[in-house]
């Protein structure tokens, strides 16, 4: 069973890791989580991002949720915002695609072009 006592361990461990922060810091992942997003499966997508970030120790990348972006038919929608403010919009996301975005875009800086809204609109 998980207990509140474990949180103290997590706190200590995290504070030590903060000293080792990487250049990935400041990246933000924003998941659309209005009625349309939730119904399309945004919640497991968000969870996949969080688990993948934890696995890779990327504690300085933030995951947040937002409301409806306005293109409900392409949900679940995820925006990855770079530290310079530039933004990539990924559409029709799944937990597996989320893992790919972390590996390719967040870690290696290569945008997953085939998953972007631009690619979806060309079809």
């Amino acid at each position, binding site marked *: 069973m998980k207990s509140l006592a474990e949180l103290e361990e*997590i706190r200590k461990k995290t504070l030590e890791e903060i000293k080792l922060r990487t250049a990935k810091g400041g990246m933000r992942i924003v998941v659309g989580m209005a009625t349309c997003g939730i119904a399309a499966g945004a919640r497991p997508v968000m969870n996949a991002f969080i688990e993948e970030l934890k696995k890779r120790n990327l504690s300085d990348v933030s995951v947040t949720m937002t*409301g409806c972006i306005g293109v409900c038919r392409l949900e679940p929608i995820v925006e990855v915002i770079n530290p310079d403010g530039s933004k990539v919009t990924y559409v029709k996301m799944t937990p597996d695609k989320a893992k790919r975005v972390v590996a390719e875009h967040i870690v290696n800086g290569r945008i997953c072009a085939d998953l972007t809204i631009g690619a979806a609109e060309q079809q």
Partner: protein
Amino acid sequence: MKELSSHFLDIIENSLKACASTISLSICAHIDKNLLEAVIEDDGIGMDAETLQKVSDPFYTSRKTRKIGLGIPLFREACLASGGTFEIHSELGKGTRIRACFEISHVDRLPLGNMGETVVAVVCNVHFKRLIITLSNSLERFVLDTDQIKKIIEPVEISNPEVLCWLKQYVDENVNKIFGGVLDEITG
């Protein structure tokens, strides 16, 4: 929506948009009455009587990105489909309270679903401040207050992935403990 927990997330998001600083979600299984009761309460900006009348209408929404709002109508339908009841009360400047009841053994009652994911998603909202969750059956009770967690982990943020993964498991384990064997879908 396939799960009650998805509806809870959707409704709580309304609370967050209404600038609530404390949101409480309490889920109670009244086994003797075959009733699952969920109450979502916030201290947000609330609604006036006129707005309150419109919220169950799918063609009403306060947002500007699209013209329909299905959150409350869908949740209400899910309650009524399972032989339950749905009530919403709100007062301008004070907050909103939704009480939804479901017949536990009704064939159309949605499963509770993944509560851990719902809690994590709420905590990740930029407007999130405090969530108090109470899970209970006739004998046992579990309470989680995110302020208590924030206090323990300070200065680490609650949105830290490590903390979120712990939080998800902590919630799921306690859902199993309280509702295992009580709700058919949870073996405990």
